[in-house]
């Protein structure tokens, strides 16, 4: 509970109504697939900070991030009917769309020879102290960080350079000065190790 320390601001715990539970993204997305706009509004509130945060982290440009996040969220509405719960969670599906869109934008700009590097401009994350499930989120972040630490250095770099920076695997190979086949397998091994670390132990 006393997990301060990530940010430099005090932690306000917004009073959360006692039995208000975090809505389930899967139920909401299923309702969205039936055209329920209200459900979409709730889904928005649940995932938009992560969609925006992810896109912004990859693009490093708040204006572009806003534009791409909007595209992503409208795409979620438009294609909700195609989400297949058997294949994956609603959030994984949404972040998959978000990440791919962000990376597409990075590549488009690189190909146009105009990668505007504006890192640093207003790149401080918006405070998330209004977020109701903040504590859960923070614990989650901690777990992810912990699990990243379990990886070997090359695995961790390969995964994070691709995921958070939007680099292609040849670019990662160049950056780390590690041969292509090695990078491919480090990415895979790294993700598998992360999976094993993040997945709760099944009680025997």
């Amino acid at each position, binding site marked *: 509970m006393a997990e301060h320390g990530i940010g430099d601001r005090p932690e306000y715990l917004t009073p959360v109504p006692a039995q208000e539970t975090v809505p389930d993204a899967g139920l909401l997305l299923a309702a969205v697939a039936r055209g329920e706009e209200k459900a*979409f509004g709730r889904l928005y509130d649940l995932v938009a900070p992560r969609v925006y945060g992810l896109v912004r982290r990859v693009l490093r440009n708040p204006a572009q991030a806003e534009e791409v996040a909007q595209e992503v969220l409208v795409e979620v509405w438009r294609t909700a009917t195609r989400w297949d719960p058997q294949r994956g969670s609603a959030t994984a599906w949404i972040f998959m769309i978000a990440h791919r869109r962000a990376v597409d934008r990075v590549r488009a700009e690189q190909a*146009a020879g105009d990668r505007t590097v504006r890192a640093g401009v207003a790149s401080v994350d918006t405070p998330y102290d209004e977020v109701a499930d903040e504590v859960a989120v923070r614990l989650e972040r901690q777990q992810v960080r912990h699990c990243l630490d379990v990886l070997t250095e090359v695995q961790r770099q390969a995964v994070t350079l691709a995921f958070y920076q939007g680099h292609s695997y040849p670019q990662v190979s160049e950056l780390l000065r590690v041969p292509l086949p090695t990078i491919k397998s480090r990415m895979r091994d790294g993700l598998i190790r992360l999976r094993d670390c993040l997945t709760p132990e099944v009680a025997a």
Partner: protein
Amino acid sequence: MTDDVHSLIGAYVLDALDDIDRAAFDRHLRDCDVCRLEADELFEVTARLADGAWSVPPPRLRDNVMAEITNTRQLPPAIPPRPQQRSRRGLRLVAAAAAVVTAAGAAGVVYQIQDQRVRETQSRLEAARASEARVRSILGAPDVQTRSEQLKSGGQVTVASSRLQNAGVILLAADSAPGPGRVYQMWTIQAGAPASAGALGVGQAAAVQVVEGLPGMSNVGVTIENAPSSATPTAPLDALVNLA
């Protein structure tokens, strides 16, 4: 071969593949249930990585999104069993094609790749988005065939060709741009007669080019020419891809 493609699964899930590899991997997933399971599992892992990047968006984003969805029709559910389902995770092409100018006309049209330094980034990005759909339809065609050759100057040229689409995509990825005043130029060859398929800009080492009517041609060639381009290919060829 299958093992070779499958080794890309991590890069695929991390969106670290280029268009051609991504298309190849999507086809691989279509035929391999186990691989699809593994990919789905790894997507759950990357979703957790996304959790680490939380940032509250500007409040107007919500208004904009809510306003836009009221005017956006939802796709119908995919009824055909499995192959269709995958389109959502399917080809989402990187617009590495930003340099491509879409083909407006019939086969054999010569389209010049715009100089990289043209200022209008916006118009290039729009051109890229327009051509992205075409590139996607070609690379996603069930009958697409890819062939690669090394460039003598270092690097690789890959040609993806689909008879069903009656079109192809040339993906040129040189290790470095040719010397000052020199450019890469791509050619299609039909019955021994070469036609330009576009030249890159000075300093440019990579391009994605759509060529309508490509399956009717016998070869794709790459040369190094004086900028901005040449009317006929200058020997020696830097690479020759046999399409037959």
